């Protein structure tokens, strides 16, 4: 066996093998049903927790494994093997975007109340930033948290929220001042309860995910649920973006690898015009291009990851990795679908779902256009 690719070590490869085994054994066999039912059961979180997979990067005192981002990175990559982008997204939202702000910015009491049960898989989290009128443009947020006696009164609407139906708590960006722009955004941990209602959205892909619009109507949130400093929420948003985008890049790397392996196997097996598809030059070259693209994406992503874990703030590399991998992953899935021909268009094969799921990549977590805007600034343009 070849040695692990840096920044991963043997320890990570062991984790990879065990996570992969668990996913292939316990989760992947149910993917089709979860997609059809447009839901995956809560017990998935408990099962992952029992394996220690919901707290890889969190300290042991909060029930975590005491590992770091590299351990989490292994899980991000391997989750592609569930075979359901929606299930991976639900799990990913919990571990990669909803709980990190509590871990990084929460009070000890908030960590005990939210992070600890989240790591146990008992309470599920969601992150609420996007609104119907504010997607890429975070400065246009309108959800208002008005200061009242003992806390805040929240009114507004969030949309495209992964885990939006099932989440027990929503880490929510709200406006705590009337002025516009990036200033005056704060984060509140809002528990599901009176005044909080969700409606599930139908989507192109990610069918097993309960992506929802969440409305807040006169929801009282106690002062102790303010996460991080008042009016400084924009920093919280920015703080986790790098990890969220790296996690997406890693997910794409895992998904590309798997899709390539499966399509190459199909091309070796399926015959047309008297020989395997892979013996046709155009298909062979296409598959070679796809393998090269997958490898390139892996290298760029691992480089950004290495910089990230060594404490650099690699905004340029992470943003490039996100931009490159999400488009490349969708293009690879689309090409795999094409290689499958008519079968590729049918639901009974995995590939049309992989293409639909991958199509979210260039939109979610900051669209390609936003990545280019960020890079334009980073590159002093």
């Amino acid at each position, binding site marked *: 066996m070849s040695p692990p690719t840096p920044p991963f070590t043997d320890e990570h490869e062991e984790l990879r093998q065990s996570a992969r085994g668990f996913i292939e054994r316990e989760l992947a066999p149910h993917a089709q049903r979860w997609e059809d039912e447009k839901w995956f059961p809560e017990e998935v979180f408990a099962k992952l927790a029992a394996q220690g997979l919901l707290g890889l990067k969190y300290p042991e005192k909060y029930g975590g494994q005491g590992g770091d981002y590299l351990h989490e990175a292994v899980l991000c990559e391997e989750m592609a093997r569930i075979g359901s982008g929606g299930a991976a997204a639900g799990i990913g939202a919990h571990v990669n975007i909803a709980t990190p702000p509590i871990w990084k910015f929460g009070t000890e009491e908030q960590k005990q109340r939210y992070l600890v049960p989240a790591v146990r898989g008992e309470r599920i989290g969601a992150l609420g930033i*996007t609104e119907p009128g504010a*997607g*890429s*443009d975070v*400065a*246009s947020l309108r959800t208002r948290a008005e200061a009242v006696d003992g806390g805040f009164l929240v009114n507004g609407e969030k*949309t*495209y929220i992964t885990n939006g139906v099932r989440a027990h708590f929503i880490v929510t960006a709200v406006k705590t001042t009337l002025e516009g722009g990036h200033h005056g955004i704060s984060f509140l941990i809002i528990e599901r309860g009176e005044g909080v209602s969700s409606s599930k*959205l*139908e*989507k*192109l*892909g990610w069918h097993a995910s309960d992506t929802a619009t969440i409305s807040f109507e006169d929801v009282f949130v106690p002062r102790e649920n303010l996460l991080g400093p008042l009016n400084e929420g924009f920093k919280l948003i920015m703080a986790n973006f790098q990890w969220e985008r790296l996690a997406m890049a890693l997910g794409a790397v895992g998904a590309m690898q798997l899709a390539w392996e499966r399509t190459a196997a199909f091309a070796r097996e399926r*015959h*047309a*015009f*008297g020989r395997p598809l892979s013996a046709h030059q*155009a*298909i062979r070259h296409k598959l070679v291009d796809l393998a090269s693209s997958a490898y390139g994406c892996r290298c760029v992503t691992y480089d950004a990851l290495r910089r990230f874990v060594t404490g650099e703030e690699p905004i340029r590399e992470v943003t490039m990795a996100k931009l490159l991998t999400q488009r490349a992953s969708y293009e690879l899935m689309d090409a795999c*679908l*094409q290689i499958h*021909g*008519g*079968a*590729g*268009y*049918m*639901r*009974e094969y995995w590939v*049309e779902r992989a*293409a*639909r799921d991958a*199509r*979210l990549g*260039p*939109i*979610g977590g900051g*669209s*390609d*256009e936003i990545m*280019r805007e960020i890079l334009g600034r980073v590159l002093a343009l």
Partner: protein
Amino acid sequence: MAATAESVLKPDFQSARKHFIFTDEHEALRESITNFATKELAPHADEWEETTFPDWVFTRMGELGFLGLDKPEEYGGQGGDYFSAMVLGEAIAAANCGGLAMGVAVQTDMAMPPILAFGTEEQKQQWVVPAIKGEAILCLGISEPDAGSDVKGIKTRAVRDGDDFIINGSKTFITNGHRAHAIVLVTKTDPDAGYDGFSLFLVPMDAPGVIREEKLKKMGMHASDTALLAFQDVRVPATAMLGQEGKGFYHIMWELQGERMIGAAGSIAGAQRCFDRTLAYAKEREAFGRAIGHFQVIRHKFADMATKIEAARQLVYTTAWRFANGEYPVREISMAKLYASRVACEVADECLQIHGGAGYMKEYGIERAWRDTRLNRIGAGTDEIMLEVIGRSYGL
């Protein structure tokens, strides 16, 4: 002479852009089909995505004369030219239902033409006359589970038995396969004769031994019924043979040209529709203080899309003109099909991207167009097959 206001040429971007292949009559027809599709079909489009579209669409369209626009009057058609069929192929996009457009195209531009071209008078009376009325629904069976692009690899066998033929085999990805009353079926009658070993049959779908297996679930085109069919000892009289025995491969290659032509026209119409809707969205949706269409990269995306659609449109129309004038422009039809379907997919994808998160949601309809359009690069011959046909046409 000094330029005056009257002598300065200014572009009029709002003017109608009628192409030379279309007359005023065609434009009137386009308007009437668009009105029909908008009023009577589009309101049901969402529902039909769940249920597949109902058979009354065929009878209603038959009543309005839309199923025989370019078919001879003696069989109940309108006796129009080929361009009138193109008008239907484009204007039906207003139904906002890709699966319906496909089901109708199978009837008018895939199943009927070979019967009219190669059929006996009796076959035309039996199937074309009721098909134009929308009372008989037709389908076409080429692809098999083990033979898609490779038509020569099909295994469905028709074996002579006295005055009859006995058919065994299976066909897949058959549009209208569950609702159809008859199928134009490609079979092998002589396994040793290579390209000369194929024959077509017109098989009634209620013949004993025709088994409509599962309804196939697809990425898109949900309003269309797509079947896996099995033929088990299906006995048909020799008179059910369509065209010449042993010439089935050439007959079906001819049929595919019309199929690709109408598919290309549908691609252009779908792309235009997607473009128009997204343009309206981009003028309305604001981010960072202005309509997103006013950001340069978004504006350029529209410019790119419009240019590609226009180029594809010219390629399709010019090729249609040659086809209608009696040429058999296989190379150009393949180019038109390849390019138009690629453009349609690129446009759908770019429109989805411009919609951002909303594009990924069912509510906006763009994701459906994206899923439906993706078939265009696979159905009626994949991109790869088009490239083969074009490449080989140069002796390569």
